[in-house]
């Protein structure tokens, strides 16, 4: 007979361990337990502390530049260490254009791969295919840069850029000498680097779409593509957007590979063939050689701006992915 005793019992078993523990604690466990918990709490605090430290160092380091230039820092396009005149616009421009170009190339490819692996490909091929795509994420940035310098750039300057100039030169986005190094090369290498991120998140989000959603659309007489478009992609769009923004966050902060191919020239050019410069690359090239407090401070301010932008972008992405996979044990598949 289920009396009050039984109810009490079921309550005890459903209590989480950390609440149940004090009741069951035996003698001799108390002091070590307290030490254990404080040690773990200290580790947690360290994580918070690191972020506070990052913010503090960036803000205090950029104070000098902020006082000297204010908001004009982000609107000015002069970068003149000799005359102590600093404006970050060319770097912001280079970062934005190269990252957006990367998205333009990477998004259709990543979504296509994710759709193929979850909806079309034979089951035994699924694992190996996603493994190979994610292998791209294991290649270090410097190796991407090395490959781009010796393979991609000769390819671009010898074949791709002359071809683009001939066919699409009238758009004025593809004109000028085909140097190879430049915004276009940076965009392509960034695209290859962010494909594994976007495609793995898209795959995860597509797999969360309930199976009966697919079956329902098919039962209405849809072809497979119509099923994917109406039943799958439309349901998953918020999550896919989250994956895209996460890829954007990675592209904005990517340093070494971009520095090796973008040409490192602080200018705002219309053509994608022209060399440029990004916020991350200027830090990589000039930080250790910066002479003068204002110069250094200006570079730290670029770092602060980069930090804030990537945090906002990442938080937005997390939120979007979270709204889709909520309730599911969201796991990044390694």
């Amino acid at each position: 007979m289920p009396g009050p005793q039984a109810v009490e019992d079921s309550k005890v078993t459903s209590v989480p361990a950390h609440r149940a523990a004090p009741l069951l604690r035996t003698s001799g466990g108390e002091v070590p337990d307290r030490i254990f918990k404080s040690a773990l709490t200290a580790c947690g605090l360290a994580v918070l502390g690191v972020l506070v430290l990052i913010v503090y160092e960036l803000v205090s380091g950029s104070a000098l530049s902020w006082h000297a230039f204010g908001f004009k820092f982000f609107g000015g396009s002069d970068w003149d260490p000799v005359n102590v005149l600093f404006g970050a616009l060319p770097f912001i421009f280079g970062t934005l254009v190269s990252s957006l170009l990367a998205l333009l190339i990477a998004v259709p490819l990543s979504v296509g791969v994710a759709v193929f692996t979850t909806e079309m490909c034979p089951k035994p091929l699924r694992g190996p295919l996603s493994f190979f795509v994610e292998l791209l994420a294991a290649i270090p940035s410097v190796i991407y840069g090395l490959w781009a310098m010796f393979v991609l750039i000769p390819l671009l300057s010898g074949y791709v850029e002359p071809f683009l100039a001939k066919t699409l030169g009238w758009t004025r986005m593809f004109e000028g000498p085909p140097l190879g190094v430049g915004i276009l090369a940076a965009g392509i290498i960034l695209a290859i680097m962010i494909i594994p991120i976007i495609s793995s998140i898209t795959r995860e989000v597509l797999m969360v779409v309930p199976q009966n959603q697919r079956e329902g659309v098919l039962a209405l007489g849809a072809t497979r593509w119509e099923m994917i478009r109406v039943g799958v992609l439309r349901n998953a769009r918020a999550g896919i957007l989250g994956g895209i923004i996460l890829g954007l966050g990675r592209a904005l902060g990517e340093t070494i590979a971009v520095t090796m191919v973008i040409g490192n020239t602080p200018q705002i050019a219309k053509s994608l063939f022209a060399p440029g410069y990004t916020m991350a690359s200027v830090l990589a090239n000039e930080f250790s050689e910066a002479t003068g407090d204002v110069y250094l401070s200006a570079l730290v301010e670029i770092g602060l701006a980069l930090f804030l932008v990537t945090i906002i972008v990442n938080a937005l992405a997390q939120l979007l992915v979270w709204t889709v996979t909520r309730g599911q044990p969201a796991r990044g598949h390694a």
Partner: protein
Amino acid sequence: MPEPNGRSSVPGVPPISWRRRVTDHVMTGVAVLTVVLVLVPLVAIFGYLIYRGVGSINWAFLTQTPKPVGELGGGMANAIVGSALILGVASLIGVPFGVGAGIYLAEFGRNRFGAAIRFTADVLNGVPSIVIGIVAWAILVRGRGFSALAGGVALAIMMVPTITRTTEEMLLLVPQALREAAYGLGIPRWRTTLSITLRTATSGVITGIMLAFARIAGETAPLLFTTLGNQFWNLHLNQPTAALPLQIYTYANSPYDDWHRQAWAGAFVLIILIVSSVAAVRYAVRRGTFGAA
């Protein structure tokens, strides 16, 4: 999944139109094309890396230090050892903090403080590595000089969020009943967590650590103004130290053919280091060497 075909098997239902069927096939073709387009750079990068790497690597590369500019030969032995030193420092700092914070989140973290740590870890994961380099420079290099320690700390900061989040996820997969059984036997909390919960999740936790390790092993940006690089042997933590990714970066940007050759050899060694460390641990974990899986 039922394969849609043009004919309708249900009487009275019109067949799927020609246009819709063609669209379906075209879109399937487009999806296959995207897969091919993504696999092409993968194959191209690995293929060229192996081709140039095998052709460039030799005994001198693995055992000698760099020769002065203009002299042929020499190697990156000091950079390989330097990388091992820096990665060792990073792991010694990053792994305990990461695993500790992960255990905290899984076992005590169902509160506001836990949520704050979780969010912070996710934010830290997205911080560009070059920014972490600036912060490590500001704390450890400014006024003291470049050092292996500063590079190790920068890389440790990058390891922590990944390890924290995977450790938490792995520990949460351990059934609650296992913990309760341990408490029922009178085993104290700390002992239960370390010997039962953590031990059960060992393979997952180690996989997380290896993912973090693989991520930082090839990092160049945070080392640029922390460890700086060095042409000579160095095993002191407070001195500028050579690192493999840094050396590859420097040599790739140089105008000398022999240095380009060595950059490829270095890249080959680096990718082998990363892939083999991950593969070895995966294999060991699967074999159960690290305890219950």
